[in-house]
Structures are given as structure tokens and as C-alpha cells.
């Protein structure tokens, strides 16, 4: 069963054009000109129940706009939407009982009252029975270690403490689908890890479907089996994180430091017949790029054994997801293989 289904979804905003100068401002007063900007442009995807899916893209790619349509905040310009059996913007009040929403940049809690009072109020708003609420709250408080924070007003909490409380607030009514818009923004590494662990556990125990947007790809690596990448309102990649890595990863980079000069030609000769590209800044240094399909040991075996090439240091680095994603953002498409610069012709079934 799919928790979220999106078909040909678009959201177009009318943006007023401001003409420059006083004359322009006066003209604007009487006749306005508008630009139509498609924040989300004909996207389709579906997310099965129980999946954790990452939703990434540059600032302004349309991530938040999509989340806001999926949560019923915005009404789509066109397309079909189904989230947990509802069309979000049509039956908003019934629909939102089944979902939890955390906006990292915005608080769900009341600023001036104790955290526990906020929770109590949310219990009433969501109509959670007293017993369920107690059980759920105990579980969450214990899991996120909030014990002594509960009586403090939100304004006196640190960002990390607040974010943990926000999570509890969004989950009190035990939603089956949870939307997280940059849940780890501005948090330190310890809180980030804690929150990731918590989300993973929740997904395992309750089968909660999670859709999260983030700029921190470590969130994605830690949590998501699947990632949807957005650029200028379009889906440019939808699939597993592993596939993304193997397809667009640049392979492994092996860096050598030599004790005495070793020309590139010599190295090329040594690795004759193996698909490796060598680069070097000077004779004492060389870098080998080993494509994904090859073993690093093959290269090492050929170079390391030579008695006339003293090696002082070897460094092996793999392309990180950050690098891959940066590359894709820069080219604006996941269809081309940025590693070798050749057109692979593979399409990311956007």
C-alpha cells in the first residue's frame, strides 16, 4: 500500500514584477505585471507505507512547497495527490489527524508556557484519549530523555532541546505518516545523531512512513533507503542512495607520496591494461582514480611491489555523497554521468 501518491503535481505562484524607480512604482500601482513561477513542476512519485524517504535539492528547488502541498497547507495548481487515503487540502481537518509535521525553522509549541502544557493542549486539539496520551508521552519522554525539560517554558530551551520537544509534539497523536522539513537544521552532531536514531527506531517499531527534507546528506545516509532529488521544481533523481553512489560516484581515489621522483609514464606503464587514470602535481606525488567496478588492491599490487619506487604514504578516499550531490546540483541533472564527463544516456526516470 502506498502512503503517499503524487501524480503530475504542480504549483504555480504568481509573482508580481516590480518596475524600478518612482515611475515604475507608480505604474505598478495601476497596472501590475505578474510572472508565473512554477515552484513545483509536474512531479510524480509514490512512497510505500513504512518507508523513510529523503527529499533533497538546493534552496528554492521546491522541497518545502511539495511538503506544504502534501500536508494540506497549500492547494496544488494541478495534479493529483493522495496521502494516507485523503486528498490533503480537501479534507484538511480529518486528514491532519493521521500525520505529524515538524518544520525545523518554526515552532509548534507555545512560547511562554511549559513544554508539558503545550503537550496537554495538543492532546486536546488532536483529541487523544488520556490513557493513550500518557503511554505515548512516557515512551517519547524516556526515549528522547526529556524528563527534566518538561516543566520549562519553550523560550528557555536550547535549540537541541526544543527540537526534541518539537518531535514529541508532532508525534503525540501517533501519526502514521510524518513529514520533517529540515529537522536537524542548526543542531550539533550529538543531537543530530540522537534524532536520527530516534527516527529509525520509530520507523522500525511503528512502521511510520517518513518523508524528510534536509541539506545534511548524513541524515539521508543514516536514515533513507530512498532519495528523491529535486531541481527547479522537477524530480531529477528518484531511487536508492546506493544506486546514486555507484552510478554517479567517481570511484575510489588513491593518492601516493613517493620518496624519490617517479614519473607518470612509469606509473601508467605499470598499470597497463587496467582502466585507471593517473594525475600528478609533481614527480613526488600521484593520484590514481579507480572506477567503481575495479578493486583498489589491483592498483596497489602493481605499484607497491616495485623496489625502485619508495612510497612514503598512501591515502585511499571514496567519493562522498556530498561530492556526488554537489556535482549533480552543479550540472542540474542526474542524467549525465559527471564522473567521466561522458553522456551515459541513462535517464533517472523522472
Amino acid at each position, binding site marked *: 500500500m502506498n502512503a503517499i501518491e503524487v501524480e503530475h503535481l504542480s504549483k504555480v505562484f504568481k509573482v508580481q514584477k516590480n518596475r524600478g524607480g518612482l515611475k515604475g512604482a507608480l505604474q505598478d500601482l495601476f497596472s501590475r505585471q505578474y510572472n508565473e513561477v512554477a515552484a513545483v513542476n509536474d512531479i510524480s512519485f509514490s512512497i510505500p507505507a513504512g518507508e523513510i524517504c529523503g527529499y533533497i535539492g538546493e534552496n528554492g528547488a521546491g522541497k518545502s512547497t511539495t511538503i506544504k502541498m502534501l500536508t494540506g*497547507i497549500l*492547494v496544488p495548481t494541478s495534479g493529483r495527490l493522495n496521502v494516507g487515503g485523503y486528498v490533503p487540502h480537501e479534507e*484538511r481537518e*480529518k486528514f*491532519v489527524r493521521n500525520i505529524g*509535521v515538524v518544520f525545523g525553522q*518554526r515552532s509548534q509549541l507555545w512560547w511562554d508556557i511549559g513544554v508539558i502544557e503545550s503537550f496537554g493542549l495538543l492532546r486536546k486539539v488532536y483529541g487523544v484519549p488520556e490513557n493513550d496520551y500518557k503511554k505515548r508521552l512516557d515512551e517519547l519522554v524516556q526515549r528522547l530523555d526529556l524528563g527534566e525539560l518538561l516543566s520549562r517554558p519553550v523560550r528557555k530551551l536550547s535549540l537541541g532541546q526544543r527540537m526534541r520537544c518539537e518531535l514529541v509534539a508532532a508525534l503525540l497523536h501517533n501519526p502514521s505518516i510524518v513529514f520533517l522539513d529540515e529537522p536537524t537544521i542548526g543542531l550539533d552532531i550529538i543531537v543530530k545523531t540522537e534524532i536520527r536514531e530516534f527516527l529509525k527506531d520509530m520507523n522500525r517499531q511503528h512502521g511510520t512512513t517518513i518523508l524528510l527534507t534536509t541539506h545534511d546528506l548524513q541524515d539521508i545516509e543514516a536514515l533513507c533507503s530512498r532519495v528523491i532529488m529535486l531541481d527547479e521544481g522537477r524530480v531529477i533523481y528518484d531511487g536508492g542512495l546506493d544506486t546514486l553512489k555507484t552510478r554517479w560516484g567517481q570511484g575510489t581515489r588513491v593518492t601516493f607520496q613517493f620518496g624519490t621522483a617517479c614519473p607518470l609514464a612509469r606509473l601508467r606503464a605499470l598499470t597497463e591494461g587496467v582502466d585507471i587514470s593517473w594525475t600528478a602535481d609533481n614527480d613526488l606525488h600521484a593520484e590514481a582514480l579507480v572506477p567503481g567496478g575495479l578493486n583498489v588492491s589491483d592498483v596497489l599490487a602493481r605499484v607497491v611491489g616495485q623496489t625502485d619506487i619508495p612510497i612514503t604514504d598512501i591515502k585511499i578516499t571514496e567519493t562522498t555523497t556530498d561530492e556526488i550531490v554537489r556535482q549533480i546540483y552543479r550540472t542540474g541533472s542526474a542524467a549525465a554521468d559527471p564522473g567521466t564527463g561522458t553522456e551515459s544516456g541513462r535517464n533517472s526516470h523522472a
Partner: protein
Amino acid sequence: MYYIGLVFEYLKNYMKTRLTYRADFWVEVISDLLMQASNLIFIFVVFGHTNSLGGWSEAEVVFVYGFFMVPFGLFSCFVNLWNFSDRYIVKGEMDRILTRPAYNLFQIFLENIDPPGLIGSLIGLVIMIISGGQLGLELLWWHIPVLLLFSISAMLIYSGIYITLTSLSFYSDSPTGIIPLLYNIQNYGRYPVTIYNRAIQFLLTWILPFAFVGVYPASLFLGREEMLHMAWLTPVMAAVFLTIGLVSWNVGVKRYRGAGS
């Protein structure tokens, strides 16, 4: 039932917050009262120069003012849309409201609930009793349910007008000019409309029906025959204007664009 329960929950939270800012609470109450007092003093000053205003005596005008204070107090307690555009549209707090399972406008009312406003209603009742006594009005049994009906209707008329105008925030970026203007116009409704010229009478009766929040319903208790039919129109006007308000609000919410990322 669900919604009534919510009112109490939010009131409870209001009290908790306010207990931490006690000074603020009293400043608000006192400034409210001072404003009402200055309006009353204005009436007394006018009647220092004349005995009758368009056929209305001082006690009658004060009675109308007292009646006006009752629905106005209810309105300022439960329906506070004063900073809606800034807080909910520009800062995007509407996002949060829309992800909760209660009617969005109702949540906004609850979040801005302001019980000190009710003190104005109480004072209004006292003013009605005093000026009614001066006029020798008799309190009949049906006055109480009718007063309740008219007060609530008048409050709903107010709400309808303000909801309609506030829903313009969904269309325009900042319709900030309208609400202060309206606050000015609404003041005219507290005085007998017959003292104004025809155009203003028409405006205050049918377009921005602030006269239904003061003089028309109050005239029933004053026994002013010429306005009797207008008085009974109050609940009808409430239904009409509240409907207009809610419809334009619901259409507006569909056009909400969110703020920032």
C-alpha cells in the same frame, strides 16, 4: 463539544501565561477602560451643550453606548484579528494552524483570546442598568434572552465584517490600511444613526452594518417604535454577514501561499 472544550483549554493556558506577566494584564485592562471612559466623557461633553441629539436624550445615547459595549467586549475577547496579516501570513504561522485538526479560523481566535475584553461587557451592562434606571425603563423577563440574542448577533456582525476584510490578506500582500480605517467607522455605530445624513445611514445599515451593533438592537429596550423592525433584523444581519465572512475566509485560505522556505 470538541470546540467548547478547546475554548476552556486555551483559556486555561491564557491564564497560565498571564500569571507570568501580571503587570501586562493590568496595563491592558486599565488602558481598555480608559479608552471606553474617554468615549463616554465625549458623550457627556456633547450633552453639556445640548439637550437632545437628533431626538435622542443623553440617557438614551448613554444607554445605546452601554449596549454597544456588551457585544464589543465579547468581540474583543473572542475575535481578535488585529495582527493576523503580520503574524500568520507574513511570518507564516498559518502553516502550523493548517496542520492541526480544528477549523483554522477558530484556532486563530483561540490563540488570540483576550478575556480582559469581557470587563468592557460587564461595564456596558452596568451603564445600561444605570441609564435605564434614569429613563425609568422597566426590566421585563424577555429582555434577558433578547439581550443575549442581540449581543451575540451584534458580535457576529462585527466578526463577519472583520473576517471578510481580514481575508483580503490572502489576496493582497499587506492590506494594512483597511483595518484602522474600519476601527474609525465602527465608532459611528455607537451613536443613533438618525443624526447622520442619509448616505452615512445607508452605509452603517447595509454595507458596514455597525448600526446593528449599537443603536438598532438597543432601541428595542428603549421602546423606540420607529426602529423596532430594524432591531429584529439584527440576528438576520448576523447570519448574512457571518456567512459572507466565512465564505470569503474559506476561499482565501485556498489561496494561502505560505511564507519563506
